[in-house]
């Protein structure tokens, strides 16, 4: 089976679900989400077993590449979309509250279909090694998110988030296109492999190349939420529906990072601009680490807190980037592997947190830290799942978050020993320590705060599928936290 059939399958699945929403009767319409989950599961199985082994580096028409990174990030996109659909199904009551109680007018069917189309865009991004393909697939993803973010049309917060995301997203797209234009103007090619050859030459003027690089960083930096392009993150995360927030913070970030890695690579490999490019990256990294961690401390809304934590995690991920292109000199997994491993772990723990939060949101109608108070008594199972997710986000040993941070710090420290960029390591240690404080605020709220009277002690209602997903995620967080090798092996 050819690898690009996967994207075709995803698009066909989305169209099928849309047709179900149109023509099927009331009863089978309720199964749209299930069809999506099952279809994505089948496509994931196809990716694992039917598609040619990722050892070889395939390319089609020069615009579509299939290598181990592409396979890995396609897998991440599929799994996160699948879990987001499970989450959206749990979230349906709140969603209908803000749109319409009527099944058809609420647009819940479309709410299940859109992530599928976004998923196809994410999978294209994983395979894009050409600036035009990158741009088109990035737009496919962003367009889907414009609609998804603003989908709860009777909720002011959601509409506000939609407008902010639309305007800032369009602006960042402008930067990206301008950067692509400058890159093409300097090098005469859109293909990243040819670009690295051209940039490695001696007669390349460094000023326009740096300008193009900065513009590209601004454009993609918006998607992966690094400072100073993070201004939209807290508001959009807070306003959007819970599953959409989770999808934004996981899938959009993961696909953004693979594109980021691929775009940055030729620039860092060019000897004439390697030095200034690294200083630019270090500046962005330091700013992201400081801002994300410090701003998270004061947050009372959980989604806002997780938004700032998502910025902070982007900072940790960026830490490994200056080592790009110097992979031979570093012991342990290289920067690409460490970043991919971290993103996979980030997917597991973040989606775990958001699944629990979705259940709590439906039951208590609150998104503040106070909504979690007493969760340890109301539902020990959910509280434990949340505890695992949050502990993993903080990076406590025995969870996957620990090994993610471990590999990144390993690279950052070895890198600092070579070129003396200790400031990054220093800020990252500080940031990780700060992380313990604000993540433990969540744990404190669950176990030590709020009194629950006897009558209230009733378990929260969890759907069967969501329950299964939560259990699997908890197991995965522990499993990869104790045996990281299977997951790391996929990225090496």
């Amino acid at each position, binding site marked *: 089976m050819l690898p690009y059939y996967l994207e*075709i399958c995803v*698009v066909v699945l989305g*169209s099928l679900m*849309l*047709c179900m929403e*149109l*023509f099927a009767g009331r009863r089978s319409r309720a199964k749209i989400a299930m069809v999506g989950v099952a279809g994505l599961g089948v496509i994931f199985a196809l990716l694992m077993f039917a598609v040619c082994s990722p050892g070889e580096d395939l390319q089609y028409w020069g615009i579509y590449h299939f290598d181990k990174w592409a396979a890995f990030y396609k897998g991440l996109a599929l799994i996160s979309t699948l879990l987001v659909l499970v989450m959206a199904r749990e979230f349906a009551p709140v969603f209908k509250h803000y749109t319409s109680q009527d099944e058809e007018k609420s647009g819940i069917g479309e709410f299940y279909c859109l992530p599928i189309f976004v998923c196809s865009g994410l999978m294209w991004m994983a395979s894009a090694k050409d600036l035009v393909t990158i741009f088109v697939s990035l737009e496919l993803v962003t367009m889907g998110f414009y609609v998804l973010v603003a989908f709860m049309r009777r909720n002011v917060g959601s509409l506000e988030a939609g407008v902010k995301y639309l305007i800032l997203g369009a602006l960042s797209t402008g930067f990206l296109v301008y950067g692509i234009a400058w890159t093409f103007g300097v090098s005469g090619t859109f293909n990243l492999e040819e670009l690295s050859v051209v940039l490695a030459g001696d007669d390349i003027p460094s000023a326009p190349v740096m300008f193009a690089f900065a513009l590209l960083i601004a454009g993609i930096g918006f998607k992966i939420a690094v400072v100073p392009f993070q201004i939209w993150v807290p508001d959009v995360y807070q306003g959007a529906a819970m599953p959409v927030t989770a999808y934004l913070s996981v899938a959009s970030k993961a696909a953004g990072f693979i594109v980021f890695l691929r775009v940055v690579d030729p620039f860092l490999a060019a000897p004439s601009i390697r030095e200034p490019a690294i200083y630019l990256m270090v500046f962005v990294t330091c700013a992201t680490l400081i801002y994300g961690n410090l701003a998270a401390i004061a947050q009372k809304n959980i989604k806002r807190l997780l938004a700032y934590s998502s910025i902070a995690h982007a900072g940790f991920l960026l830490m490994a980037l200056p080592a790009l292109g110097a992979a031979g000199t570093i012991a342990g997994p290289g920067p690409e592997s460490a970043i991919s491993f971290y993103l996979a772990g980030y997917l597991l723990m973040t989606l775990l947190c958001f699944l629990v939060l979705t259940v709590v949101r439906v039951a208590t109608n609150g998104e503040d830290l106070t909504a979690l108070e007493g969760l340890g008594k109301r539902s020990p199972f959910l509280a434990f799942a949340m505890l695992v997710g949050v502990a993993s986000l903080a990076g406590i040993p025995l969870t996957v978050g620990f090994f993610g941070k471990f590999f990144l710090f390993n690279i950052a420290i070895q890198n600092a020993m070579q070129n003396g960029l200790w400031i990054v390591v220093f800020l990252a240690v500080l940031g990780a320590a700060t992380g313990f404080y604000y993540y433990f605020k969540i744990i404190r709220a669950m176990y030590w705060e709020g009194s629950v009277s006897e009558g209230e002690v009733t378990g929260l209602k969890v759907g069967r599928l969501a329950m299964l997903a939560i259990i699997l995620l908890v197991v995965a967080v522990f499993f990869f936290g104790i045996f990281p090798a299977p997951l790391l092996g996929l990225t090496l």
Partner: protein
Amino acid sequence: MIATGFAVTTLLLSVALGKSARRNKIKDSPYECGMLPIGESQPRFSVKFYLVAMLFVIFDIEVVFMYPWALTFRDFLARDQAAMVFWSMSGFVGILLVAYLYALKKGALSWES
């Protein structure tokens, strides 16, 4: 030099020679010798038009894409790639067909309601 000079000269001449006619209400109207303008200059359109405009853009793009496809069709046939070129367009039209059915079924094309 000549171009600038000409522009400046004509502007100055029109100031010097023009505006000699008497001004009145009819002279100052936007269209001196046409229909009398009725109503506001910026009438309000029904919001329904935006749906029509959106659908128009979608199917407009379809034709824009089909045109170069039809132009290069023979080249692909000559290179024995008939199946590829046929299925690529079928896929595109298929996706648009689903979109069209969606718009139709959701009542985007019915003016009433």
